[in-house]
């Protein structure tokens, strides 16, 4: 038996029991309106204030540094998965989270606004914009 056949047989022997009944369906999705560039186009550095953000978006998911950094988040469904084999099965959904990272000066006036996204990536660590978020695994 050639090396290729042995490798292919081993691959099949591994793949068949592990991948049987496994399916991942991508779901068409987009950035939620609340944290999109279009929806946040009203925000102008030097003009918009912390009060404006709370009035339009409510309280942030996380507030840091005496409320000078706000992190807003919204997510959308990205994938539906199902895995089954024999008499057992499991399924679930995978969401993609979108973030608006907002920095104010000491008077509460907007200094900087950035948009980020990720499945499990901490946007604060990834961008260096803020301290790590609780519960996120970079």
């Amino acid at each position, binding site marked *: 038996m050639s090396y290729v056949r042995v490798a292919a047989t081993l691959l099949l022997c591994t793949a068949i029991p592990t991948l049987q009944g496994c399916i991942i369906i991508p779901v068409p999705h987009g950035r939620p309106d609340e944290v999109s560039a279009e929806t946040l186009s009203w925000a102008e550095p030097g003009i918009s204030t912390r009060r404006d953000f709370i009035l339009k*978006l*409510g*309280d942030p*998911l996380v507030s840091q540094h005496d409320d000078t950094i706000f992190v807003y*988040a919204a*997510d959308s469904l990205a994938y539906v998965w199902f895995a089954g084999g024999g008499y057992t099965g499991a399924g679930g959904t995978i969401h993609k989270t979108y973030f608006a990272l907002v920095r104010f000066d000491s008077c509460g006036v907007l200094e900087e606004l950035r948009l980020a996204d990720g499945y499990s990536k901490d946007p604060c660590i990834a961008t260096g914009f803020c301290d790590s978020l609780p*519960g996120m695994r970079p």
Partner: protein
Amino acid sequence: MMTDSFKSMRGAAFLAIMLTGCASILPREAIEHQAFSWVDPGRTTRSDVIFALGMPRSAFEQDTIFVYGVSCPTGAGCRTVPWRGLVGGDVRFQLVLFFDATGLLERRELLNELYVPEPMIPSPNAVP
């Protein structure tokens, strides 16, 4: 042999059974009017709000801005909650209140909840 009318009656009965227990959710404006119309700008004070709703989920700018989480279970009344979201199919909002320097309510807004994390993340002010 089934007649057409019998078939349509059977279809209607099937739909009625399947839809039992479904209740429509009131629009946000209606919920704001029904549950929070007593929170009246120009009349209600910060003390009134705390007495009725408890401490807010978040407070900003020397307590001149309060944010409450609001949960509206299907078919039941709305209530304020200290957490960002609840387990289950509740409709979630956030009640944002702006007070002036004397503690008098200036403005009231009911917004959609942006993000309901799993597991739930308590806000810094949350008292479970």
